[in-house]
């Protein structure tokens, strides 16, 4: 299905469908994510049965702050759809989609690890890349980059945003 036809089809179900740069994006509320992804997966003429990626972006100046993006792909038709849901800054929680796409297991763990988004119902929500006892959520924009102490005459290399050179 070409992009415009796909967007037209999606507008039957979702009010917020955007087409930019040959890509279709659907914006849904966080409560509807499981229903939306299930519908996209099960709809016989869309066949978006495969989850390519699940990630998050932090927009600290906006509300909702955390935007989780689900990238779906259809082998039969070769089309892709991105589903986005916004989460509040305080206590970002969203339902897990591992029941719809088991591939989301590690992907959601990574989003939890780096952004602190809690996926309710996830079978094994714990950090995956950072050590288990790490504090803080590294990919958030307010997480400091940290400088590097060196052994050379007590010099300290400041983090990237504080360097003068």
């Amino acid at each position, binding site marked *: 299905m070409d992009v415009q036809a796909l967007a037209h089809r999606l507008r039957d179900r979702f009010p917020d469908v955007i087409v930019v740069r040959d*890509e279709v994006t659907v914006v849904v509320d966080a409560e509807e994510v499981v229903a939306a992804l299930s519908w996209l997966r099960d709809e016989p003429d869309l066949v978006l049965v495969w989850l*390519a990626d699940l990630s998050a*972006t932090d927009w600290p100046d906006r509300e909702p702050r955390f935007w989780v*993006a689900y990238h779906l792909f259809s082998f039969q038709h070769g089309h892709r759809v*991105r589903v986005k849901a916004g989460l509040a800054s305080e206590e970002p929680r969203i339902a897990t989609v591992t029941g719809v796409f*088991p*591939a989301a*297991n590690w992907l959601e763990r990574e989003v939890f690890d780096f952004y602190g988004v809690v996926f309710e119902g996830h079978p094994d929500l714990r950090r995956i*890349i950072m050590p288990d006892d790490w504090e803080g959520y590294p990919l958030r924009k307010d*997480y400091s980059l940290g400088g590097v102490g060196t052994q050379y005459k007590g010099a300290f290399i400041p983090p990237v945003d504080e360097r003068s050179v």
Partner: protein
Amino acid sequence: MAAKPSDSPPVGRDPFSDTRREFDAPASLPGEEHGDVREETMLINMGPQHPSTHGVLRMVLELDGESVVSCRPVVGYLHTGIEKNTEWRTWQQGIAFVTRMDYLAPFFNEMAYCTAVERLLGIEVPPRARVLRVMLCELNRIASHLVALATLSLELGAISVMLYGFREREVILDIFEMASGLRMNHAYMRIGGLAMDLPDGATDRVRSFLNLMPGRIDEYEDLLSQNPIWLERNRGVGVVPKETLLALGATGPILRAAGVPYDVRRDDPYGGYEDYEFDVVTRTAGDCYARYEVRIEEMRQSLLIVEQCLERLPEGDVKVDDPKVRFPGHLSVGPDGIGNDPRYLAHIMEESMEALINHFKLVTQGIRVPAGEVYQAVESPRGELGYYVVSDGGNRPYRVRVRDPSFVNLQSLPAMVEGGLVADVIACVGSMDPVMGGVDR
């Protein structure tokens, strides 16, 4: 099971007579004498420091004798914060970061990142750069499959193949060094094309490689494909039904070996791949042997694509024309290595102030990329490598999310391994070929 005391020592001098002590096997194990047999499973840590785990992969295995009851992969030992770093550097600097993630397939990272940014910018690379990018990526695919083959063979004991695989990889790395100056992690592609054109003689090198390689691939097949030990270790090992692999998001040779013909180059083409003729290699068995066969045949298909690239390589520039995007400078090889051509330096220093200012601004501040987001997938040797790049309109990326194939493929490792033997864990990890740089980023 109680060990039996050894038979009487051979006649003659007993080298252990001084230190030998009688081995007194217990008549029964603790608990046995009461009629109940205790069985415990053993929790063993495999890695992260281990010669056969393809990098710093840690697997917590629960073993019942030799059988794996459960396997939990633990990752994160190679995490270097690349995604966060890209948010604090210019778009151009991102290439040097991004190329170091999947370090055995650096050109694919660069290709995906540059293609994603070019889509955000709305620019097209010149035709010569397009063909050269495909050629470099396919050569990189061969090099990566050679490493996969060589390391899997080494781990299973076929040590000669390790040497032969790396010998051929050296030829490819020489070609890369000729083009970019580096053997690995080249940062050779630029937003809008390539850093510099191929030097004279590079295409001849590639052509002689194309003459050399098919015979060498036949040699690997002679050594391995009908080898009884190779068959024993790989046939029927690590079989996962394709529905499970699809549900777990696995891509690349492991999915194609199970029968699903998903190849991003065919199903969601990019960079001109729709114009090349090649087969998507699939098998149906879904075991480690099928994955080996898929990689061998993919190397042959990549040779075909490189041949087509050489045939259709047009003349022209390798950088896009747009002065707001084109990375300034004109590189050439001087007595101390690759650097800006003296004539270009003369131009900006002596002739044109505007050119100097343009050069300065583009290098220090970088280019501005319009706000938006894009998901660009490429077919890396391990599967679908996806880049979700978000721009806020500035001169730095806002978010570069890398969907690395090894990370998602590793999710299916427990499915492959549980119920099998410990030795099969090695074969499964080797046939999956994860690169921890991509897994951990």
